[in-house]
């Protein structure tokens, strides 16, 4: 590699990871002054467990993420199958409907969904956050699964059908195992996007349904504190482990599926 390219890469990665690294390191800072090192300590992590509102918000977030990611995985996979068809009436409109939520500014998605819920007289709370999150994350699932569908070997499906397998059996024994890594990746992506969302949840949530990002945001507005650094570090650790597990699963499944039968 050219030395200049090496420098560009190194600078780029330092820029991406430096701020996160600083935040993680200073979550173990003894001092309450967040930019002055005062020795190693885990006291801020102990303080987190005592914060019952934080624990409650974490529970809400995990519930919402699990429910909305499951819903988004089913709907997104269905959308991917539909878009993968050779003949699909109204394709430009339908594919636009699938892709648009990914780039739509969150404030617009949040406001419009809230107005829908109010218009329909649906009480705001956990359910409305789940619906909202499933709606914007299903697009990401659809894109990931569709990319995989496009790359699978059609002759395998035809062979199974030629050998007399009914469509359901072809789907469950051939298609699904082939796209499983993408479906799992899509689920994990939807899960993290849901866990991360502040803007849309703020619009559509109601009393008693405060998510972790909403709770974090109300504290972040007051300034930098070691407690926020500690909870952020825990979140980053959880996500990193999740991504690592997902890529390991995908790599193993990918190899297994790639073995010629």
């Amino acid at each position, binding site marked *: 590699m050219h030395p200049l390219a090496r420098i560009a890469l190194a600078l780029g990665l330092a820029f991406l990871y430096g701020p996160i690294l600083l935040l993680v390191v200073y979550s173990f800072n003894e001092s309450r002054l967040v930019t002055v090192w005062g020795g190693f300590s885990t006291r801020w992590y102990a303080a987190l467990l005592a914060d019952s509102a934080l624990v409650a918000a974490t529970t809400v977030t995990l519930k919402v993420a699990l429910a909305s990611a499951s819903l988004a995985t089913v709907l997104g996979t269905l959308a991917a199958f539909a878009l993968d068809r050779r003949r699909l009436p109204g394709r*430009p409109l339908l594919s636009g409907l699938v892709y648009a939520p990914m780039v739509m500014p969150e404030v617009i998605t949040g406001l419009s969904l809230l107005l829908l819920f109010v218009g329909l007289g649906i009480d705001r709370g956990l359910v409305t956050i789940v619906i909202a999150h*499933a709606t914007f994350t299903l697009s990401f699932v659809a894109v990931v699964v569709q990319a995989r569908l496009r790359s699978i070997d059609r002759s395998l499906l035809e062979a199974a059908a030629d050998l007399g397998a009914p469509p359901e059996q072809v789907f469950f024994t051939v298609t699904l195992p082939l796209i499983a890594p993408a479906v799992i990746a899509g689920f994990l992506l939807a899960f993290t996007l849901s866990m991360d969302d502040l803007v849309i949840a703020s619009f559509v949530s109601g009393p008693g349904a405060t998510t972790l990002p909403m709770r974090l945001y109300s504290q972040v507005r007051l300034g930098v504190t070691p407690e926020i650094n500690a909870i952020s570090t825990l979140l980053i650790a959880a996500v990193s482990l999740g991504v690592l597990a997902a890529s390991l699963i995908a790599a193993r499944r990918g190899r297994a599926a790639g073995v010629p039968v």
Partner: protein
Amino acid sequence: MTALAERLRQVAGPVLAFGWLAAFFGLPFAIVLKISLSDPATALPPYTPVLDWEAGIAGWANLLAALDFENYRTLVRDPLYLDAALTSLAVAAGGTALLAVIGYPIAYAMARAARRWQPLLVALMVVPFWTSFLIRVYAWIAILKGDGFLNRALLALGLIDQPLAILNSPAAVMVGVVYAYLPFMVLPLYAALERLDRGLIEAARDLGASRLGAFLSITLPLSLPGLVAGALLCFIPIVGEFIIPDLLGGADTLMLGRVLWSEFFSNRDWPLASAVAMAMLLLVALPVVLFREAEARRLEREP
């Protein structure tokens, strides 16, 4: 019977998926449009409904009579909204340009790295995307604030005498935008550069083109689809960005997303917030349409 069941099965999936999107993504926009045309009220919900569904034909007649563009007139008249729109566009355009300049060398270096390192490099670009947006923006407060890491480092090095006031300035918003959206620019660019046939560059060099000449006539044009995709993936969400200007920007970096937020949550003026949303939608609709066209052309070329 089985043929009918099969047809049902084939239709049910798409109907469920697209029906969901139509109900929870398409329909809400119609409601936003409707409410942007109604008057604010101090009730719950805080707007005067323009259309009374139970009133039938008379309701529709009332609808047409009650529609007014008062909220949109406010948007045009009050310089606050025009300023916010211009700031949003300026930050989005400037940020996207900066992202292209910073992201291109990184994507280029990734595409030129040894094959076996490339999956790792892509993963390193993707991981920040999985990490909470809020946390990543928050991390910059500690760096940019008056007694933050940056000022401490610069003071210690003797480069400045007084701490710089970066936090709560347009510069901080720009830093936040570039930081948060860098993977969105780098990954599509990398995808385009990685596919590029190096033989073409060698051929150009053999035929006497300089390094720069080969880059300008081969590499840059062939990576243009990636650049366009990256630019749109950055530009559109930045126009509506709320978290970055709210946490890093000052009172003067008022962007549309922030205006919409405060109209809704602080002023409880839902009709005006809806009008801001429609205006923002208009600003981003054009790039979306262009992106779709480009995507369609690309998919046609490589079936």
